[in-house]
């Protein structure tokens, strides 16, 4: 055992630094994979149920590979959002910027419970979902800085990022929910056993169009998982001041619902798997409320402390941080080593730095692109400029 320690604290880091200088990837852990626990089972919180006989399992299995992947993805999201914060303060990102840090377990857990061939739509706090749905950090950051390498070629910005089977990124509160049901309708119509995950926040949960959507999705048994990300505040208004009922998982009324611990990625994953199974078996929509928290204010123009205390934010950070929770679980069950996770941190930091570098040096979109993408599959047309003598070109 002492020799092992010697290896870890002296020899291996030295070896690692040798290799790192040459740029090669190094497995820092001196111990072989055989020394790690390949899989462990964890108890997870029981979900409150609404109109359901039984809920997701009370235990979740996590393999080492899964754990490391979840850790890497959540850490990437965290660092990406923090980098966006930095770039916004330097005025390199403009306009609106709604950050997701604190809520990582939701995005990663949901994706772990569905397939990439399923569909997802959310509101404006969407950078993390753009990542889980196939976007790269480079494309996301370049979109935030408004460059031609951005995922929407610089034309969308923070709130309007799209990938295959990911329909944004929507700026109008609640408007994405009917759209999500529409996607679910298409899934049912095309019969490909796909479903649509339709996200909204506690603020949007009071929008009338959401209740209209519940009705239609239920009536037509659409394969739609409605997910309310309840981070306790709709901009500056706490849930108690906005909603007559804060049991968001019950507000689907005739739609079965579950309330899930949104800070625990395993809880989110198991609940999502359960919900997906429900939809795919033709039982119709289901509603999940994820209880989560955002560390930042509503957006970069909101300090986030006029309507909640710093103590509250600090408490969540220290007791319920999703990344810390996963890390503790893995370490205490010998599923990974501290160095290994640190190595991931270093790699993530590098990836973010590279992406930020790209995002700040990539050129802005060309002016030729100004009027493109008005119509699809349309012959080229002319678009009026700012005055009658300026005619601009538009292609599909």
């Amino acid at each position, binding site marked *: 055992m002492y020799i092992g320690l010697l290896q870890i604290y002296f020899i291996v880091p030295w070896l690692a630094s040798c290799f790192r200088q040459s740029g090669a990837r190094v497995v820092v852990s001196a111990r072989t994979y055989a020394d790690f626990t390949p899989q462990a089972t964890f108890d997870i919180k029981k979900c409150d149920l609404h109109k359901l006989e039984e809920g997701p399992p009370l235990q979740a299995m996590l393999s080492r590979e899964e754990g490391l992947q979840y850790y890497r993805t959540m850490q990437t999201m965290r660092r990406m959002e923090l980098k966006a914060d930095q770039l916004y303060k330097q*005025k390199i990102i*403009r*306009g*609106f910027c709604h950050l997701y840090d604190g809520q990582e377990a939701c995005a990663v857990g949901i994706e772990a419970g569905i397939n990439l061939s399923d569909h997802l739509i959310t509101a404006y706090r969407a950078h993390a979902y753009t990542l889980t749905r196939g976007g790269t950090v480079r494309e996301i950051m370049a*979109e935030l800085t*408004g*460059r*031609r390498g*951005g995922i*929407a070629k*610089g*034309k*969308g*910005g*923070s*709130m*309007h990022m799209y990938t295959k089977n990911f329909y944004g990124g*929507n*700026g*109008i*509160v*609640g*408007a994405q929910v009917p759209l999500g049901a529409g996607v679910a309708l298409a899934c049912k119509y095309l019969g490909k056993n796909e479903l649509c995950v339709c996200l909204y926040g506690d*603020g*949007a949960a*009071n*929008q*009338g*169009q959401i209740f209209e959507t519940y009705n239609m999705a239920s009536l037509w048994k659409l394969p739609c998982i409605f997910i309310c990300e309840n981070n306790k505040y*709709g*901009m*500056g*208004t706490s849930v108690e*001041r*906005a*909603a007559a009922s804060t049991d968001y998982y019950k507000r689907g009324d005739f739609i079965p619902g579950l309330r899930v611990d949104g800070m625990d990625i395993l809880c989110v994953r198991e609940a999502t798997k359960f919900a997906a199974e429900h939809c795919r078996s033709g039982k119709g929509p289901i509603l999940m409320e994820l209880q989560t928290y955002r560390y930042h204010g509503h957006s970069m123009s909101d300090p986030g402390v*006029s*309507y909640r205390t710093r103590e509250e934010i600090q408490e969540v950070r220290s007791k319920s941080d999703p990344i810390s929770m996963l890390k503790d679980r893995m370490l205490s069950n010998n599923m990974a080593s501290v160095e290994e996770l640190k190595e991931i941190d270093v790699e993530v930091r590098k990836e973010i730095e590279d992406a930020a570098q790209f995002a700040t040096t990539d050129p*802005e*979109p060309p*002016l030729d*692109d*100004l*009027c493109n993408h*008005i119509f699809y599959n349309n012959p080229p047309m002319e*678009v*009026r*400029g*700012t*005055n*009658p*003598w*300026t005619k*601009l070109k*538009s292609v599909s």
Partner: protein
Amino acid sequence: MASLRCFLRSGKNAVSAVLRREFHRTSPAAVQVTVRDALNQAMDEELERDERVFLLGEEVAQYDGAYKISRGLWKKYGDKRIIDTPITEVRMMINLSKNHLRMFLIAGLRPICEFMTFNFSMQAIDQVINSAAKTYYMSAGLQPVPIVFRGPNGASAGVAAQHSQCFAAWYSHCPGLKVVSPWSAEDAKGLLKSAIRDDNPVVFLENELMYGVPFEMSEEAQSKDFIIPIGKAKIERQGNHVTLVSHSRMVSLCLDAAAVLAKEGIECEVINMRTIRPLDAEAIETSIMKTNHLITVEGGWPQFGVGAEILGRIMEGPAFNYLDAPAVRVTGVDIPMPYAKILEDNSIPQIKDIIFSVKKTLNV
């Protein structure tokens, strides 16, 4: 000498334009007031004056307003007069039922309804048009609707397609509504007070980029009874060669363009519309009869826009015969608003576009 500084949040350099107007002299009691503070003052004074006036909207109370327009009002007037609503634009419906309850009484409530931006008003536009605008007509005079819808309208800086639309044309299309679009701090204060006192539904289009811009406010404007009548335009700058008609933030651009053109001997007359509906066509006609050239400048899209209406009216009216050249519209580009700065900058009129259009119209 009145001086004006325009700070554009999009990062452009601050442009100083000194106006050579003579009809407004700096009096010792004039102060610099931002548009934001002017709006705040207007609401404060009207809340104080009339108990039936109240404000509701998202984050207007405890948060002090998403854009801080209602700062301090909740502290002063409390929960009853300043109401935070959930994110449900159809709260219009609640306002209107309050009015309906008072059908036969003299006193009816007078809500000020804040939209965080007018883009969100589309969620409630059915209520604005079908319940607010048309009710007095449908009831043949029985049920007035004294409500003000206010909030930022039009392009901001980097807020992309869903948050940058100008709704002036949409609302002005509808009879039964009054549509006001202030530019300066005096406009903001005087017109908001008028709007609140008006017994009809008024759509009050502010502009986020103008909120922080300071303007000189005369002593008269600082008084609690200062109102600007709805439906009357103002000539911000006298000129002989061409009439520039504009509203809201574009007035600043027109004045800047006028300053540049003046150096080349072209004197522009700049008209600040102040009200879109009812349109002060007479002011525009009188000006055209003097200058013989017309250019309208707006941030919104060209098709069926404010400029299109003005040109139509002029064509149909007496001023047509005074035009020496076709009247022209300078507008936003006919595309959804892109995010990237270079694209956004090229999507809305710039000073150079106005100058270019003036020279083309004057054939110089």
